Every structure is written in structure tokens, then in C-alpha cells.
């Protein structure tokens, strides 16, 4: 039997990683909710941001949190560029075209990273990479806690932005009903561009803050996109609140399954849940059926 302190420790690590997953999934689900595009390259955008953060640390000695000043605007721009050059041209194409073209972007990012950095896993060691704070029976790893706090703050900021600002309302209007939004004066193409860029920026933020405790290779994106799929579906595709709950749930399931069963079996269980949700509640565990 596993001790209670070990379980608590696992739950804590699930909470931390789940928060980061939630941020990644929210970027993904925002893009899908608004533009109807399933962005297979989303996980690879996390990977790309990890490499940029890595390079800034290695070359300029910039701390991953400080490097956000560069990474966030850079990836908002990359998102915008990607949208204008590629995504915009297939918005009205069938889903199969969305999947293939974003797979093309995935392959582009992966092979570009492979060409520049090679296939090995790389990481950085910051002053706080191995630091932790002992609280009662558990040790709180600072780097992971920091990533979780930043992720949750970003999720909150995004939620406030979508609810309170005019642009946020325009985004939600376009997500709800594209033609209707256009009729009442929402600049739909601009909203699409901004949503895609914001989604890309969310991926980049998550990528940057996990650099202090995660290794990066050109291939880590696959794991992130699979998580984003599962979380977004659990939460109901397009739902920001659902993605937050789904992210935490997956974080806990992952942490506990690695404790009690093997990680690969835990992965199988996660996908079995995904299938069950898709069959019985395609609008997500936490979502409501749309009429």
C-alpha cells in the first residue's frame, strides 16, 4: 500500500502539471471553438517555445520567466503569421483538410527543430530547478509550482478577457455564430486571426514556464497535442472552463496512475475515457449539450 504522504505528493504534482495542461488545452480549444480548426501543430508550438526559451537561457542567460517578455509577443506574431499564410486559406475547407494542413505545420516545426538542434533531449538548470519547499508531509517543487501559478493566472486572465472586454465578447460571438456576429458588425476575419494568435501564445506561455524542469526535443509536441485533445474533449470542445477542469482531471489521473499502475496503462485508460466521452457525451463531461 502506498503511504498517504506519497499520494499527497502525487496529487500535488498532478495539480501542477494539470494546470499547465489546462493552459495548453485552452489555447487549443479556443482556436477550435472560434475557427473550427483542429490544430494538430498546437503541441509543436509548445515545443517551439521551449526551444526559444532554451536558446535564450543558453545564449543570453535569460531566466525562462524573464524570457516571456520576448517569447509571448514573438509567438503571438508567429501565430498571426501562421494564420495569414496558411490557416486562413483552409478555414472553409473540410475538417480533413484542416487536419492534414496542420499536420504539415507539425512536420514543418518538428523537422526544423530537428535540423537546428538534433534529436537529443536538452534541458536547462536554473537556480530553482531542484529547489523545493517542505510543507508538512509534502515537498513543493518550486519550478513546478511557479509554472502552475503562471498557467492558472493566464487561464484566469483569458477568462476575464473573453467575458469583460469588447474584443473578448466579439470572439465569443464569432464562436457562437459566425454569420450572426458578422451581421452585428464583428470583424470575423480579424477575430479569427486574434483567436489563433492567442491560442498560439497560450501554447508558448506553457512551453516557456515548463523549461526549468522539463527536457525538450523536437518530438515532445506529440505528447502535448494528445493531452490537449483529450482535455479539450473532456471539457467539451470550445469550452474554456471545461478545459480547465479537464486539465486538472488529466493531471490527477496521470499522477495517480503512474503511482498505482504503469504510465502506459494509465495512458490507455485516459484514451478509453476519451472514447467513452466521445460516444456518450460528445459535448464533454463538464459541458452542456448544444441544441
Amino acid at each position, binding site marked *: 500500500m502506498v503511504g498517504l504522504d506519497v499520494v499527497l505528493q502525487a496529487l500535488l504534482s498532478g495539480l501542477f502539471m494539470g494546470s499547465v495542461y489546462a493552459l495548453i488545452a485552452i489555447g487549443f480549444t479556443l482556436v477550435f471553438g472560434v475557427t473550427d480548426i*483542429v490544430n494538430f501543430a498546437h503541441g509543436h508550438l509548445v515545443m517551439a517555445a521551449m526551444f526559444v526559451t532554451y536558446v535564450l537561457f543558453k545564449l543570453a542567460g535569460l531566466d525562462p520567466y524573464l524570457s516571456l517578455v520576448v517569447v509571448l509577443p514573438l509567438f503571438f506574431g508567429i501565430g498571426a503569421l501562421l494564420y495569414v499564410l*496558411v490557416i486562413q*486559406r*483552409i478555414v472553409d*475547407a473540410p*475538417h*480533413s*483538410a484542416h*487536419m*492534414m*494542413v496542420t*499536420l*504539415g*505545420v507539425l*512536420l*514543418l516545426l518538428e*523537422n*526544423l527543430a*530537428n*535540423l537546428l538542434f538534433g534529436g537529443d533531449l536538452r534541458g536547462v538548470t536554473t537556480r530553482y530547478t531542484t529547489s523545493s519547499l517542505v510543507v508538512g508531509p509534502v515537498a513543493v517543487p518550486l519550478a513546478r509550482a511557479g509554472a502552475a501559478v503562471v498557467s492558472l493566472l493566464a487561464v484566469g486572465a483569458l477568462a476575464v478577457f473573453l467575458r469583460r472586454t469588447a474584443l473578448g465578447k466579439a470572439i465569443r460571438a464569432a464562436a457562437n455564430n459566425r454569420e450572426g456576429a458578422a451581421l452585428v458588425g464583428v470583424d470575423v476575419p480579424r477575430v479569427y486571426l486574434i483567436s489563433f494568435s492567442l491560442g498560439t501564445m497560450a501554447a508558448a506561455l506553457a512551453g516557456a514556464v515548463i523549461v526549468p524542469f522539463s527536457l525538450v526535443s523536437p518530438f515532445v509536441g*506529440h505528447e502535448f497535442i*494528445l493531452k490537449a*485533445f*483529450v482535455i479539450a*474533449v473532456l471539457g467539451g470542445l470550445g469550452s474554456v472552463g471545461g478545459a480547465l477542469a479537464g486539465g486538472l482531471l488529466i493531471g490527477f489521473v496521470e499522477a495517480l496512475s503512474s503511482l498505482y499502475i*504503469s504510465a*502506459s*496503462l*494509465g*495512458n*490507455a*485508460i485516459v*484514451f*478509453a475515457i*476519451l*472514447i467513452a466521452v*466521445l*460516444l*456518450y457525451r*460528445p459535448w464533454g463531461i463538464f459541458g452542456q449539450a448544444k441544441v
Partner: protein
Amino acid sequence: MSARLALGLAALAAAAAAPLVAGQHLLTAFIVALHAAYMALAWNVAAGYAGQFSLGHSLFYGIGAYASTMLYLKLGLTPWAGMFAGAGLAGLVGVALALGVYRYNVRGIFFALVTLGAAEVAKGLADNWDWIKGPVGILLTMKSAPGEFFFLRREPYYYVALAMVVALILISLRLERSRLGQHFLAVREDEAAAEASGVDTQRAKTVAIGLSAALTAFAGSFYAQFYLYISPDTVLVFEPQLTMMLGTMVGGAGTALGPVLGSVLFSGLGEALRNLPFENTRPVVIGSKLVYAILLIVILIYLPGGLVTLGRRSRPA
């Protein structure tokens, strides 16, 4: 029509004569291209003709690889027969999956995600299944035993792969003209309209997935016999699925020649580049993949019907 037949026969003759002039490296590239073309054609049956965009075909590929291998190792059944058993099993799994999925009316992107999830579940289970050696995988011994689908030279593998591709092209052409094939197309173009005009769409979709799954399994068995090593990380991952999709979508989904064209261009050329006579081919190989990624994006944006539509006059969508 007869001009097309003559062209086809000429291409076949050229392909049959290729091993006479190609070295072993080039022959490997040809085998990889033919294998990819076969996989693409098999996926195309469901995704191209019937519009059922599965992302979980690695599951059927893996079933084929493991079924023929385990039957050979445990029961001594020759893989020549084992591959048919694998195809039967994959077909059953495909039908079961389709019945479950279509019963709940899962479509489009949700269908893609369910099938992707099914393949991921299979990989997780395979990783934890000791009887099939889990993540370690299974190594087959290299030997010469033509009756058991083992060859020391590349030529026999090449001809097997060629025969598989030719057979599947013929099946695809036959399908295009059959009533079943017409039902597939009707489902793809407009499911509600097909249903309204009397097509049993559930049945058509289920048959499409089952048939496509069974055909895909043969490719898995071929992989096991050619590479002599299978593991969840080689046959149950997204890689085979990607090979199928790239070839099909680049060449032209829902056609009998598009998947072959796209696969030869993408997989065959990539493999050929790997054996260039340089010291360090790595930048060339990765660079070519980079070029492929860009090509894929450009082709799908500007030629959504794939390369086969290049020669045709553009039709109104």
C-alpha cells in the same frame, strides 16, 4: 480506355524489371515506396472513397503485424497464412469499432478522435501485455525460408510488395465501379442525401471501415516479415497512420492512383535520399522532410484534390 490499359501494363513491366537495374539500396527505397503505397491505398478505401477519416489505422496495421508474427512463433503457422488471419481479425475489430461508433452517430472530427483514441488504447495495452513481449517488442530471425515468408535478398520482398500494390489498385478500380463503391461515394458526398435515397449508410460505413482495416493488416504483416522486428513503438504509433495519410492526401484521396503517386513521391524519395553516397546524409534527410512538410501544406491549399487533379481541368466544386 485501352490507352490507359497499355500505359498501366507498361508501368507494370517497368516496375517488374526494376530489380534488374537497381542496387540493393535503391531496391530498399522501392520497397518502402510500394509498402507506403499499399498502406495509403488501404486507408483510402475508408477515408478516400467513403469519407471516413480514420486516424486509428495504426491499430489495424499493428494487429496485422502481431497476428502473423504470434501465429508463426506460437503455432508455427506460416505468415503467408497468418497474414490472412491477421486481416480477418483486423476486419472484425474494424467492424466492431465502426458499429460502436456509428451507433452513437459519431462523425467528422469526433470520428477521427475516437479512432485515434482506439489506437492509443491499443498501444497502451500492448505495452503492458507480456505475452507479446510488451514494449520490448519481438525480433524475428533472419533466414531463408520462402515457404515462411523469409528471404535473405531484397528482390522477393520487392515482388511481394509490388503484387500487393497491383492487387489493391485493381480492387480499388473494381470498387469504384461497384454498387458498394457508389454507396461509399454517396456517403462521403452527403450522408443525409444518401440515406434519403435509400442507401443503408450505417452498413456502407461499417463495410468501408472493416474492409479498409483488413486490407491494412496485410501491410502490418509485410512490415514484420521485411523488418523482422515489431514493437508497440514501431507499429502501433502514429507513424504508419501518417504514412497512409500523406501519400493519399498528396496524391489524391478517393482515386486508385493518387495514393500510389503520393507515396512514391513522399516515402520512396525520402528513403532514397537516406542512402546518398555522402558521409553525413542527416541534414539532407531532415531537410527533405522539411521540404515535404512545406509541399504538403502548399499542395493541400492549392490542389485540395491532390496531384492527380493536376492534369485535369478544374471542375466546379
